[in-house]
């Protein structure tokens, strides 16, 4: 039982990170119909910015993390929107989807060439010490990850629901035409979405890197997990992405322990197929109304 609880807690900690990536994916889809196939690479890249900050520039961990988030918002937020999404959305959804695949390839191969093909170690936020709470052994590092991820999600939810800008962003996502008529600066709201996505990806990157190590090819599995989390939870709901992320994290961890380590990747995929078969709108999603 204690083992099971430990696995669940570890799963919730990684699941919260997946949720961050999945939320960003969902937000981009909602506000700009961008299916970002480079989302995994977006989570892979910022850790390298932090590594450059720590190793090359000799900055402390916290400053490097801030540097990584800032650079990510600039490059994966502003530059991605202005240079890739804006010119390509005019050509239609498929050219844009293809381009995000190319962006993913570009980031992956670029990092491999410019930085290194080797996996790099990355420091944890809290020391990797085991503490015991009522018989359950938990790593302090995992608790740190969970705390940061939960704080980020709560802050985001407060921003989206509790501030004027956040509600304007929601209006933009739900109906850009009406939002524009009501005086919402739609363009700026879309830009904010890209910035938030980049920041979430960067935070996820810094949190996941001590666990996965920093490697150019990390994006493949991270991107896949973010898709699965977003679709399982409900493509069009932020809370769906959160639930999906946590669920996938826990299932992934339990599958590795109880099913088979060599097929652990397949278990979330099986979940994805089941959801598509029986509840295509996702566990918490609502059906999308479509007009002809």
């Amino acid at each position, binding site marked *: 039982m204690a083992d099971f609880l430990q696995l669940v807690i570890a799963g919730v900690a990684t699941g919260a990170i997946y949720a961050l990536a999945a939320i960003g994916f969902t937000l981009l889809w909602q506000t700009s119909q961008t299916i970002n196939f480079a989302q995994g690479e977006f989570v892979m890249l910022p850790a390298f910015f932090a590594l450059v900050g720590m190793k090359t520039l000799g900055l402390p961990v916290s400053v490097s993390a801030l540097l990584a988030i800032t650079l990510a918002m600039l490059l994966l937020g502003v530059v991605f929107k202005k240079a890739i999404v804006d010119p390509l959305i005019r050509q239609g959804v498929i050219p844009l989807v293809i381009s995000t695949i*190319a962006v993913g390839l570009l980031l992956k191969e670029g990092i491999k060439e410019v930085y290194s093909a080797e996996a790099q170690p990355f420091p944890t936020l809290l020391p990797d010490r085991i503490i015991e709470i009522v018989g359950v052994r938990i790593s302090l590092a995992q608790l740190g990850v969970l705390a940061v991820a939960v704080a980020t999600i709560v802050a985001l939810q407060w921003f989206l629901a509790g501030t004027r800008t956040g509600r304007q962003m929601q209006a933009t996502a739900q109906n850009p035409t009406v939002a524009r008529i009501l005086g919402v600066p739609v363009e700026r709201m879309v830009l904010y979405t890209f910035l938030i996505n980049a920041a979430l990806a960067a935070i996820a990157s810094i949190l996941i890197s001590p666990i996965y190590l920093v490697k150019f090819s990390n994006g493949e599995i991270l991107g896949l997990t973010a*898709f699965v989390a977003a679709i399982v939870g409900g493509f069009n709901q932020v809370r769906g992405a959160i639930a999906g992320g946590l669920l996938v994290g826990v299932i992934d961890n339990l599958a590795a322990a109880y099913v088979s380590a060599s097929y652990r990747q397949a278990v979330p995929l099986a979940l994805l197929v089941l959801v598509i078969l029986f509840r295509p709108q996702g566990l918490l999603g609502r059906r999308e109304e479509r007009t002809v």
Partner: protein
Amino acid sequence: MRSRWLLLLLLAAIVVLALVPLGLQRYGTYILTLWLVTAVAALGVNLIVGYAGQETLAQAAFLGIGAYTTALLTQAGVPFGFAFLVSGLASFAVGLVIGFPALRVQKHYLAFVTLAFSVFVWLVFRNEEWLTGGVMGIMGIKRPVLAGISLRPALHFYWFVLAISTVLTFAMWWLLRSPWGRAFTALRENPIRAESLGIDVRRYTLLAFAIGSAYGGFAGSLYAPLVEFIDPAPFALGPSFLFLLMVVVGGAGSFFGPFIGAAVAVLLPEWLRFAQSYYLIIYALLVIVLMAFCPSGIAGLAARLASRLRKAPVPADAKPGRANLGAAAKPEARA
């Protein structure tokens, strides 16, 4: 009229292609054969992406299904011809099974399901060592013997692959020109109207996906005896992404697009040896630039240039890629 000229052009191209390797070394012939095999798989992707307006991220997985099926069957003593058919049929059947749930739902779901399927197939290839040899793969796959002539020499095998690719290319040509294929033109131009005219959008899309996947299986069946050794790496998710990019670069929805795309993906890296590892970076940039300025790919670019030279308006079917991609961008009729 126009299609008769294209047919003549196609025949001339086949004759040229049959003669080209006479001036090439063994390695050159090998690369040319690899190009044909890649083009066959890309033909399938083009049917799915360019004509049915879906996204597939599993063509390398279907290639793998074909390659492993052929390798295992021929090693068990089954003749190549039979193994080839089984490879295509197996991919077709698997395509139906995974396409059915995905196409029930909305756009992009086929992309996600094929993404998941790709990873799953790769896991099976890697983990089921008793069957696939795991990461060590399967070695010593024999090239077939045709009517007493061994296809072991590179040139013989090239001609064999050229013959099969020609048959598959003409089959695709016929398919697209049949009433069945015409329905696709209707689908991509205006899916809502097509549906109201009684075209079962879902069934046609599903069949297109299954047939496109079968082309992946056929290509895999040729790939295994070509390289004579298979392991899971070329059938992973990354190569599936490359197949999609290749077709779009060549020109999605243009009949010869897959051949151009496969040439860019297979032949160009050989010429760009000096660029080596930077090749994929250049390639990715090329894709983004092409998508931004000419989403109908190199085929569309060529058509645009040709019509500018003639100072004539672009012929109606010279820029199908754009028409298709535009139509695909519209929301689907059913959710």
